């Protein structure tokens, strides 16, 4: 037996699982074909946050007068914006390398595939440095992640030049003057927000009737208005018929309610969803069950194939780094025979556009569809002292309580820094707080988080500042 656990994929699911395994005294190896930290750290969450910060600061420069400030005409150096983003990713990538060494986790650079073995499938690695290495472990955890969905038949396929996925969109040579973003999920909206902040004409195309379709409808509506104020344009309920490339850019033919229209721009970003990385791993031969490009698992990540587990994006939505980490830790603890800590942890979701959007738990529509009677609280940041002082009065906090038990079952926020606040509600939900605990909690003044308190009060008709 070479290892207790081999983890395939060193993204935020895999590498966190590896650290937890090492903490539990398991001899652990991790296989990565590209870069430690995975998409999240190298091509996703982290470098986009660096870009978005540049965009946000630049946008602020246009509002200096609001704060009694003045500066010469603001400019940006796009190459340096991208360079900073890459530097941030690079720093964190080497940080993961340090963590692997610290926890004595063997990092194997190469591409893994699985073969039949006992007690778990064998891991055969085509090593980057050459040669093949076959390893047997007691447990194998697949954490291979996911990638952007493409639709080549209608031209929705990145070409690295005029048509981008998130990956190309992160490192272009120059900022486009005009851009079509196809898909208004978190990824599409973040890039739309970033390039708009840098002055591009941006059109977002969404097939569903509203943007950010997984969010609460009130938040979607408010977000669209906020983005439109910043000059973003939207085509909602619009189906992409075809994307064609010209010498100067792209043309996207869309159909909205029977009407056909052709949009033109320098560049297009394809953000129409995610597919799991399940190919070329030998999963079919092992009999691993795959549905809609994702590995089917039980609550602990077990695939049904002895000794084989799957966590994170490859095991299905929501495609979020913190969900992957949570599953990775849970899976490893399960392997080590520990009781589950929190199988049904509420998983917050964040979109780092300007303004930010954050949510946890059920949307109002989902709660009602589930037959639950809800009490709804709302509080707008325009009535919050800190928000007024900061000039960040956009947005609101919406809370949902089960009318019968008082359990907090959902929270939806839009506004400045709401992504830093949502964990307050996530903690409340994890501790199974009711409105009574939220009402009794002291929120510091002056902070935007007071709106979280007021929203919970509002749900019970007790709001103080509205």
């Amino acid at each position: 037996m070479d290892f207790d656990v081999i983890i395939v994929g060193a993204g935020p699911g895999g590498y966190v699982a590896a650290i937890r395994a090492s903490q539990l005294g398991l001899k652990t190896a991790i296989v990565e074909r590209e870069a430690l930290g995975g998409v999240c750290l190298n091509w996703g969450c982290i470098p986009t946050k660096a870009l978005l910060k540049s965009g946000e600061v630049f946008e602020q420069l246009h509002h200096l007068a609001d704060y009694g400030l003045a500066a010469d005409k603001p400019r940006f150096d796009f190459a340096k914006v991208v360079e900073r983003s890459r530097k941030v990713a690079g720093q964190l990538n080497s940080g993961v390398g340090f963590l692997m060494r610290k926890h004595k986790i063997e990092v194997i650079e190469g591409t893994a595939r699985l073969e039949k073995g006992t007690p778990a499938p064998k891991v055969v690695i085509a090593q980057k440095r050459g040669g093949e290495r076959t390893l047997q472990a007691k447990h194998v955890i697949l954490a291979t992640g996911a990638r952007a969905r493409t639709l080549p038949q209608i031209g929705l396929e990145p070409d690295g030049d005029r048509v981008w996925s998130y990956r190309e969109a992160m490192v272009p040579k120059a900022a486009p003057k005009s851009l079509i973003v196809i898909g208004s999920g978190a990824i599409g909206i973040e890039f739309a927000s970033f390039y708009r902040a840098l002055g591009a004409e941006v059109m977002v195309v969404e097939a569903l009737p509203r943007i950010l379709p997984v969010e609460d409808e009130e938040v979607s509506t408010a977000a669209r208005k906020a983005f439109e104020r910043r000059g973003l344009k939207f085509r909602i309920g619009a189906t992409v018929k075809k994307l064609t490339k010209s010498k100067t850019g792209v043309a996207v033919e869309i159909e909205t309610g029977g009407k056909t229209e052709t949009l033109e721009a320098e560049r297009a970003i394809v953000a129409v969803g995610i597919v799991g990385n399940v190919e070329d791993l030998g999963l079919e031969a092992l009999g691993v069950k795959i549905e809609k490009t994702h590995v089917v698992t039980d609550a602990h990540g077990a695939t049904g194939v002895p000794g084989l587990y799957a966590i994170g994006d490859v095991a299905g939505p929501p495609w979020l780094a913190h969900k992957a980490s949570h599953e990775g830790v849970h899976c490893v603890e399960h392997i080590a025979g520990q009781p589950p800590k929190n199988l049904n942890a509420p998983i917050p979701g964040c979109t780092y556009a300007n303004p930010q959007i954050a949510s946890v738990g059920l949307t109002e529509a989902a709660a009602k569809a589930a037959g639950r009677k809800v009490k709804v609280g709302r509080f707008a940041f325009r009535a919050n002292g800190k928000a007024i002082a900061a000039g960040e009065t956009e947005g609101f906090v919406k809370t949902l309580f089960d009318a019968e038990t008082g359990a907090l079952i959902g929270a939806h926020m839009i506004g400045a820094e709401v992504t830093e606040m949502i964990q307050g509600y996530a903690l409340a939900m994890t501790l199974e707080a009711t409105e009574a605990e939220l009402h009794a909690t002291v929120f510091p003044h002056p902070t935007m988080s007071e709106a979280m308190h007021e929203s919970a009060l509002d749900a019970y008709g007790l709001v103080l500042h509205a």
Partner: protein
Amino acid sequence: MTDILMPALSPTMEEGTLAKWLVKKGDTVSAGDVIAEIETDKATMEVEAVDEGVVEEILVEAGAEGVKVNAPIARLSGGTETKAPEPKPAETAEPEAPAKAEAKSETPAKAEPAPAKAPPAKAKDGERIFASPLARRIAEQKGLDLAAITGSGPHGRIIERDVKDAKPGAKAAVTAAAMPTGRRGETRPVQSLQQMGIPEGSYDLIPLDGMRKTVARRMTDSFRDVPHFPLTIDLEIDRLLEARGRINTMLEKDGVKVSVNDIILKACAVALKRVPEANASYSPEGIALHHHADIAMAVAVEGGLITPIIRKCETKGLAQIAQETKDLAERARTRKLKPEEFQGGTFSVSNLGMFGIKSFGSIINEPQGAILSVGAGTKQPVVRGDQLAIATVMSVTMTCDHRVVDGATGARWLEAFKALIEEPLAMMV
């Protein structure tokens, strides 16, 4: 300042009675000095100081019952840390009991161990119940008694799913294996005697002491959770009685007297070596087959019973067994047994023969796989061939944990045991 904490004198000890202080406020103590006596579940133990210093405060008065393990009982000057004579994980610390006791002490301590906060839900015995706010509310709405519910959250916390589908008066369905911390035995809601039609004043109430609580808890847990079944067999013990007479004649000069029960203990041990499947314990991980026959013998003591153990009984001669049982029984009655002398054991023997009981079935002493109940030996008519004869017959009942000892296994063990009792010479073979 150093707080002296209530020590855990055994792994299962949860609380104890502070029987006696041997020091008083202002006394100087050195490490190793005996400072108090504590009555645990089953024994009286001495508490030694681990640090030197001056006794600044006695926080729990002598005679205080139900003092939780790790609760501060006294305070020494000097040092800043809190030290328990035998530190246990902090999760068992319960500062409520000393707070109660403290109210009686003359000078209140500077730092109150348990400031009065919003009262948490209390079980009957005052232990805090850990439950999420949502679980509390649902329980209240449904009229559920949280004390009757087993939590499945972190550290046994009661969470929504434990109460969501529970019905009033019913225990939440949670498998024992899934529970990180078991609180079995405290889970049944208990009606008061009044509610059950016995008027107050019509009886005297004897408070539950540590031993009674332990007996109640362990027997309830075992009888509820272990699938018991009895196997009864008659043994002729004339040869055994005869052998005992000769052995005792031999040992007379040493002042040792072997009882019938000593021979039964020895025979049990030898039979367990011959049928090792009966020397077993159930655990979720698997069935433990014990290497030695550690035979626990039930000893009735004032206010309860205790089961001291003859370790590796199969390796010991009757003279040694006789001496050990005498010593253990005496010390059991004066509550001077050390925890390791009555905890563990792989098989138990309970003998009520001296009271004329013909036969009975005992409750298994977890985690043991079986217990032997020994009845009285009486002269009875027996049929030999087609002739009536008279023999001294003793009835024994083996109660088995069906998870580890099946009927056929139990029967094979009784067969081996019978052969040894009916022909004691066979123990030498």
